């Protein structure tokens, strides 16, 4: 196998991506698939805002509206935000720690395909008798009563996609624990690697409760069990607990990597070392722990009793402390820095006030007595959009601009990038700021319309106009991407000129083995240290040039996934169609067959020889 890049036809490129185990290509696929789902979720959001733009609207029916909001939330959280973040983790984290790939390249690919097919399965519900309609939280009393197959698509689709996320999380953990380059101690890891680590640990602990909850739901709906049916001795509250034991850590799984991205951006464009590095690490870990102790703040109004409510209220407010530490550290990083306001930096600067606003409303909701007023109103909708859009989505948009040159060796247009930013940022505040007041004025969330005499018309209209602004911002981004890809001007490494961490030191385009020689890490901000010492190559090496062992690509992950995908249709139609059980068995047989092949057939990978490496100037 030669390492020299060749021009390839479409078929072989496709095959290459279907079988790849290279973290950089998997990153591109995560980004593309997540981006696609982001657009789909965005279209659903626009439909919601069109319906709510004026009172007594009949743009969509009440039933369809429920399907749209459910799919909007589910798609955005599980199929857009998380996978896009996974894309950046895959693209950047191994390079940051000086690794040639993740610990389990095969599983990396499996995780991606599971996510993609789970997402496709979920979205097929639109064409196969109606989408799920019980909200992204799918509370059991509602979801068990929901007719049709919508909820079944939700349960099975999330189970498949969730398995992919879980595998991805474990993979990142093992990679960070075992694959760091010599000298890369834990306390020298860049913040994005740290947040990837903690977010992956949260995935490790938070997804099993969701899996259990969804299995109960699957058994209740498709196989006649009664875990959540109180008339049969079940308990519907158990779903809420299981969901939120997962659900609250989930919001931190989203926001921690966003914190990581912004930490990188602040240090890079303030051209200063991150202020309070060790307290940043401490705060990240602490948030991770506390994130598990607060889930019942979503259930204050369930009637858990004053003691439970008080405990969970205090625990929730405690999270604001490490979060506040982070905010101050970022401010002090910018303080006195020599600031360059690039597009990613614009997002980072805008993130601070936006996220703080979301945090403040969070504390308000954490006060249990006040939450009796706020719960299930538009105030909640405003809160979580401030933290998720003002935090996670701003981070994703910033990272698209920041890491585009790293992933594709091209630079997105800064001019269009700034246009995107301003449209999106203004639109975001226009849409969601006013929803706080709608909530206080009594507008409940998840209503499909409202009356003209309720005094909510103007604010809802303003909110819808804001949404249109955000859409324009996203369209400009898409145009920007298309123009950049078509122009295809290579930019080389360290395109922002002030790169501090190892990923910017690698020659562009990044060779598929990442590092010809494993680097030696001599401190925090590895690349910066080398630059300051006038090292032209940007790296000190920890080993002589020698053969590199690489894994072979494999088609097995996608086969395993397709097995589960087929099997899911069997489970879905159980008890309704004759072919259901055979199809379920067939699907599982394909998956287990593929697993058997993988286990029984030895695959030792291949070596790139020293001689080839010496001639190789890079190339994908």
């Amino acid at each position, binding site marked *: 196998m030669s390492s020299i890049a060749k021009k390839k036809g479409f078929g072989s490129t496709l095959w290459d991506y279907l079988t790849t185990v290279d973290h950089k290509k998997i990153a591109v696929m995560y980004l593309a698939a997540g981006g696609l789902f982001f657009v789909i979720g965005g279209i659903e959001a626009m439909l919601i805002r069109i319906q709510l733009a004026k009172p007594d609207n009949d743009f969509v029916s009440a039933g369809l509206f429920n399907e749209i909001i459910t799919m909007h939330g589910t798609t955005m959280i599980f199929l857009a935000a998380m996978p896009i973040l996974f894309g950046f983790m895959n693209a950047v984290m191994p390079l940051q720690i000086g690794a040639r790939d993740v610990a389990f390249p095969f599983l990396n690919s499996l995780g991606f395909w599971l996510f993609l097919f789970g997402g496709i399965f979920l979205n097929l519900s639109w064409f196969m008798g109606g989408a799920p309609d019980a909200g992204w939280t799918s509370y059991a009393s509602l979801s068990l009563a929901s007719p049709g197959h919508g909820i079944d698509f939700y349960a099975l689709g999330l189970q498949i996609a969730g398995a992919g996320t879980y595998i991805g999380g474990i993979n990142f953990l093992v990679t960070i624990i075992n694959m760091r380059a010599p000298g890369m101690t834990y306390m020298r890891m860049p913040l994005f690697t740290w947040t990837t680590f903690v977010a992956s*640990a949260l995935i*490790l602990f938070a997804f099993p*409760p969701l899996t259990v909850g969804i299995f109960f739901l699957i058994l209740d709906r498709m196989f006649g069990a009664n875990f959540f049916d109180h008339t049969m001795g079940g*308990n519907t509250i158990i779903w809420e*607990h299981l969901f939120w034991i997962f659900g609250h850590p989930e919001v931190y799984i989203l926001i921690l990597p966003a914190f990581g991205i912004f930490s990188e951006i602040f240090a890079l464009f303030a051209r200063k070392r991150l202020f309070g590095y060790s307290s940043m690490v401490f705060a990240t870990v602490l948030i991770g*722990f506390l994130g598990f102790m607060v889930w*019942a703040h979503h259930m204050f109004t369930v009637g858990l009793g004053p003691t*439970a409510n008080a405990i969970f209220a205090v625990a929730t407010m405690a999270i604001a402390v490490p979060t506040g530490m982070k905010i101050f550290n970022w401010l002090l990083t910018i303080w006195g820095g020599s600031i360059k306001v690039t597009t990613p930096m614009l997002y980072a600067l805008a993130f601070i006030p936006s996220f703080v606003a979301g945090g403040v409303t969070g504390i308000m909701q954490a006060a249990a007595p006040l939450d009796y007023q706020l719960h299930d109103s538009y105030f909640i909708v405003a809160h979580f959009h401030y933290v998720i859009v003002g935090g996670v989505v701003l981070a994703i948009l910033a990272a698209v601009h920041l890491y585009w040159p790293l992933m594709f060796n091209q630079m997105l247009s800064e001019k269009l990038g700034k246009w995107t930013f301003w449209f999106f940022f203004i639109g975001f505040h226009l849409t969601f700021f006013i929803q706080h007041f709608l909530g206080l004025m009594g507008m409940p969330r998840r209503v499909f319309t409202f009356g003209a005499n309720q005094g909510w018309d103007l604010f809802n209209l303003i909110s819808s106009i804001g949404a249109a602004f955000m859409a324009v911002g996203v369209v400009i981004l898409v145009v920007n991407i298309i123009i950049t890809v078509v122009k295809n001007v290579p930019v080389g490494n360290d395109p922002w000129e002030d790169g501090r961490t190892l990923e910017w030191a690698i020659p562009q385009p990044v060779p598929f083995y990442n590092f010809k020689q494993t680097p030696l890490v001599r401190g925090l901000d590895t690349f910066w240290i080398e630059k300051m010492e006038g090292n032209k190559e940007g790296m000190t090496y920890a*080993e002589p040039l020698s*053969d590199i062992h690489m894994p072979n690509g494999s088609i097995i992950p996608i086969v395993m996934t397709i097995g589960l995908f087929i099997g899911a249709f069997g489970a879905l139609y159980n008890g309704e169609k004759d072919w259901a059980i055979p199809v379920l068995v067939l699907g599982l047989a394909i998956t287990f067959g593929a697993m058997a092949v993988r286990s029984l057939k030895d695959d030792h990978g291949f070596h790139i020889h020293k001689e080839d490496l010496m001639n190789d100037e890079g190339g994908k």
Partner: protein
Amino acid sequence: MSHDAQVYVRSQTEFEYIKQKRKKDMRNQVTSFAIMIFLTLIAFTAVAAGFSVYLIVPVILLLAAVQVVLQLYYFMHMSEENHQVAAFFLYSAVMLAFTFVLTFLTIVWWG
């Protein structure tokens, strides 16, 4: 890392050391295995002897906890070096599971 072929020959002392260590490990494994069988026997006898449920349940839970620890340390190699990270994750999981079970008991099933 480098994959150039390397041949490594153990010295006599190293060989002796490893041999002794293996012997010790083996002894520990067999002992803990015997203890676990014994604990299981106690559990079964407690049920068979028909003691009060309020005695049997806590005793069995306690024995189970001891067995888990023995399993982890002697069969899943937690006692060996370089298992700090694994231990950290395991104990975090135990702590979280404990919190979840405690809340379920107090506010779902008893409350």
